[in-house]
């Protein structure tokens, strides 16, 4: 055993890669059902915001991420958007990233169809609108959303033909008191901290951005934070509708566990080698 530990740091990386691949793939194929604990400071406020909103209220959302963060942020968007449709809220989406618009363009249709299948109203143009990426001047959207967005949504519809957009000529605190941004980097929440400081801002971010966003959460510049895939899984748990995040959390949990074990074994190996000179 001692000899194994001493030589552990010289182990062939391919073996480690294989172990890691197994830890990630097996739980996806055969979920284990590891426990998910809801974070009261980060996830719960986001859920409570939608849960306590009145039917018909307008909420905005921003999809600012790409393919690299799709696995973490799309389950967040999916759960949050379903919740909006379930509660009868009116959702209007924009994107600061073109890739985010492309991803959300398909995803939102899928979630809306699922909500309708479950008996909730999720009609496009009435219950939700997705404007997409418009290379927008964000500050100008406060005054004239229609003009700034060229009067068309992501799918090419004219705003005149969308009943929901008749209520959303401007994007101000009067139109919508709160909104959420699903972000993977820059441009991201900074756009809103500067231009929409009078609104309640919520963030859904990738796990690596959580530490950075903690400072603005503590200063109450943002009101809630969905932290990576774990945040999405927690939201799904609160919603009572397990989805991709819940099953993927098993894989993420095992992947992290492998890394923890590797760090411990690597350090034992290092200490033993040092002792032996």
């Amino acid at each position, binding site marked *: 055993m001692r000899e194994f530990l001493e030589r552990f*740091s010289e182990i062939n990386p391919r073996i480690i890669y294989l172990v890691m691949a197994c830890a990630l793939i097996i739980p996806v194929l055969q979920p284990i059902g590891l*426990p998910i604990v809801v974070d009261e*400071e980060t996830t719960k406020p986001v859920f409570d915001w939608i849960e306590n909103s009145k039917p018909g209220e307008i909420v905005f959302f921003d999809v600012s991420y790409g393919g690299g963060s799709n696995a973490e942020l799309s389950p967040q968007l999916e759960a949050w958007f379903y919740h909006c449709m379930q509660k009868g809220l009116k959702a209007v989406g924009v994107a600061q990233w073109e890739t985010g618009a492309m991803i959300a363009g398909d995803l939102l249709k899928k979630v809306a169809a699922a909500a309708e299948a479950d008996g909730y109203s999720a009609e496009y143009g009435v219950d939700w609108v997705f404007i997409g990426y418009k290379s927008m001047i964000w500050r100008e959207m406060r005054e004239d959303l229609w003009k700034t967005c060229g009067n068309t949504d*992501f799918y090419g519809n004219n705003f005149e033909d969308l009943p929901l957009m008749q209520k959303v000529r401007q994007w101000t605190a009067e139109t919508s008191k709160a909104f959420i941004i699903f972000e993977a980097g820059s441009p991201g929440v900074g756009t809103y901290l500067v231009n929409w400081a009078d609104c309640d801002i919520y963030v859904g971010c990738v796990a690596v951005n959580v530490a950075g966003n903690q400072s603005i959460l503590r200063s109450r510049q943002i009101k809630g934070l969905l932290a990576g895939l774990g945040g999405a899984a927690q939201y799904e748990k609160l919603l009572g509708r397990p989805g991709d995040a819940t099953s993927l959390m098993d894989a993420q949990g095992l992947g992290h566990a492998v890394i923890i074990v590797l760090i411990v074994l690597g350090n034992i190996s290092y200490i033993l080698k040092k002792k032996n000179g």
Partner: protein
Amino acid sequence: MKREVPYILMLIMIVLRFAFEWIGPLDAWVLADGMKVRSLISWAMTWMGFGAFGLGIVNFTRVHYGNIRHRREHWMFSAYTIVLAWAYGIYGVIKGNNDPLFSTIFRVVSEPLDATMFSLLAFFIASAAYRAFRVKNLESTVMMVVAFLVMVANVPFGEMIWSSQSWLGGFSGIRTWILATPTAAVSRAISIGAFLGGVANTWRVVLGIERRHLAH
């Protein structure tokens, strides 16, 4: 003239931007019905951004065309890049980003490639975990212990070992404290430092001390 004109243009833009952000009457200045001066400046900046994008396309094409023309190493990849980028770009401009073929190419090629690149991180970290993350001195030991606690709290196993309902809120409670107190404090310090650095650099540009962006 090559020095003065860009510098004067830059100075005008900086003064305009500052003035329209900071001075209330200028911010509210309306030329005609629905025509705010600040909005016009904002739109002008958007067009400048578009111009920069165009410049990027020209530069990108020049670089890769040069690789192909001089048959530099891996010139074939430059050929792929030029053909694919231009073909996809032109198709997107003509058909729009909601076109089924355009979005399918994005969904089945671009998106998975992007996700794959990001996923490789798991293997890099696994490789680094047993070879690089060592407790060599006090600083690295502190970092390792903190990383260990946060990581354990992030995985469901952490909850199984030390529940959030128990003493100190378990691993979860410790993680929350680490992220909310020392991490947030350090993060703010870095942000404030970066902001002050940005302001100092802006003044260096305004006063003409910093001229490297003008190729001097």
